[in-house]
Structure formats: structure tokens, C-alpha cells
């Protein structure tokens, strides 16, 4: 851009504003990593806990310990991204991050209160997740993720009707359809 001494006509001013707004738009970054990474981690945990309970392992829930290293990897990836690529933050990106961090906190906290809700942990987490997934889909303007949110909602409600064991299977299926599939579609779209 040229120096400030140059006078602008009103039309030039408007054109400039328009072009700059366009530059700032469409800066939502490819965050398919999180969908794919967490999708696989959670599917592994659900299938693992189903298998362990089938072979009468005493603590089938132990498999959920894998989310601890997963959180660490996720945070490390996030801070590395911020260091190397982050140059702007849009308000929507902030909302999206807040949404998933809140979901993460709930997903960790809810299991500790399992006894209060008759151990209906899987449906509760799927239902909370359906909100986050749906909102993310709207934020990214990405239809498969919106559909994913609806899938979570349907599977979440269905979970109330089956035993804890089969809830794991249903959850794994819900995550595959509602999270992993949109994640791969998002990734392929960005390339």
C-alpha cells in the first residue's frame, strides 16, 4: 500500500474496506487433526473397554487411562501450531476452542459423578458432545460435522436403552460416523 498522503475517494475507501474484510475472512484453519486424533483415541478406548469386559477383566475402565497421554499430545500439538502457524485469531476460532475445552472438562468430570446418574456416563457424554459437534459444524460451515452432531444426539439417546457394555459399542459407532468421517472429509477438503 502506498503512503498515507494519498487521498482516498469515498468509493476507494469502501473498496478497500471490502477487500480487507475478504482477506480476513476464510481464515479458519485445518483442524482436522483433532477430529482424527480424538476420534481414534476414543474409538480405541470404547472398543478396548468392550473387549475387556467381555473377557471378564476386572477393570475394563482402565483402558480410559489412554486419554491422559492423549490430552498431553493434543496440548503439545496445539501449542506447537500456535508457535509456528498462528498469526491471527478470529472470534469464531476462540468460540470453537472454548467449546471443545469445556466439553473436555465435562468429559473428565462427569465420570466422577457416575453414581449420581446411575452410571449413564456414555449417553451423557455423547449428548454433551452432540452440542459441541453441531456448533462446531455451524462455526466451520461444514455440513458433515452438523450431521455428526445429530448422529451423536440420536446415539446418545439410544444409549439409555442398552447395557453399559453395549453403550461402548454404540459410542464407538457414533464416533466413527459423527466424528471420524467428518474429520477425514475435512482433511481431504483442505488439501
Amino acid at each position: 500500500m502506498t503512503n498515507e498522503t494519498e487521498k482516498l475517494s469515498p468509493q476507494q475507501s469502501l473498496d478497500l474496506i471490502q477487500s480487507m474484510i475478504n482477506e480476513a475472512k476464510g481464515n479458519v484453519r485445518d483442524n482436522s487433526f483433532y477430529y482424527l486424533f480424538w476420534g481414534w483415541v476414543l474409538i480405541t478406548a470404547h472398543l478396548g473397554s468392550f473387549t475387556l469386559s467381555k473377557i471378564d477383566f476386572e477393570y475394563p475402565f482402565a483402558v480410559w487411562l489412554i486419554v491422559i497421554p492423549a490430552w498431553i499430545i493434543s496440548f503439545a500439538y496445539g501449542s506447537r501450531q500456535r508457535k509456528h502457524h498462528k498469526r491471527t485469531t478470529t472470534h469464531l476460532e476462540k468460540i470453537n476452542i472454548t467449546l471443545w475445552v469445556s466439553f473436555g472438562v465435562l468429559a473428565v468430570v462427569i465420570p466422577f459423578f457416575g453414581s449420581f446418574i446411575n452410571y449413564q456416563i456414555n449417553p451423557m457424554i455423547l449428548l454433551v458432545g452432540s452440542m459441541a459437534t453441531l456448533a462446531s459444524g455451524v462455526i466451520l460451515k461444514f455440513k458433515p460435522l452438523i450431521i455428526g452432531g445429530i448422529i451423536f444426539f440420536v446415539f446418545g439417546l439410544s444409549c439409555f436403552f442398552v447395557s453399559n457394555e453395549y453403550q461402548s459399542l454404540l459410542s464407538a459407532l457414533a464416533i466413527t460416523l459423527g466424528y471420524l468421517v467428518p474429520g477425514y472429509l475435512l482433511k481431504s477438503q483442505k488439501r
Partner: protein
Amino acid sequence: MFKELDPLLHSQLRLGIMSLLLGLDSADFVFLKEKTDSTAGNLSVQLDKLSEAGYIQIEKSFKGKKPLTTCRITKKGIKAFEDYVNSLKTYIK
């Protein structure tokens, strides 16, 4: 009736910066420099002017060993921008 245009905003580079920041939560110096296609020296001067007027907030930190300047628009800046666009409308009609 033509309304007077805010001289602080009625400059190509400063208006460009403000338009960019309006749509973003924050943006760093390198991003602004690329998008406005300006020189570092000129951009730096104009950012200081906007900051002195309270239209933007400048935060200086470090990214590793490199200095990092992050800018964001203030409420006062948004108000000024709105007034500017409203004044602009009186010219277009």
C-alpha cells in the same frame, strides 16, 4: 450534507489495518504487513498512530527468540470505524 471523515481513518494503510482487525480477534505484525502489502517501517508508524488514538491495542511479546507484535481493535476503534462508514455513506448517496 457531507459529514467530515475521521482523518485518522481516512488513509489507505490505516483504514486497511482497521478493516482487517475488525474481522479478527487479533492479528500479528507479519500478517498485517503481508495483507496490506506495506513496508515494516510505514506499518509500524501507522500502528503507533492508531494505538495513540486508542483505536487499537498493541501487545509486544516473544515467540521463541523473535519479537511478536499482536494487535487488536478496541471498542473505541470499532466506534470510530462505524462513524467513519456512516460518514462515508453521506458521500455515496
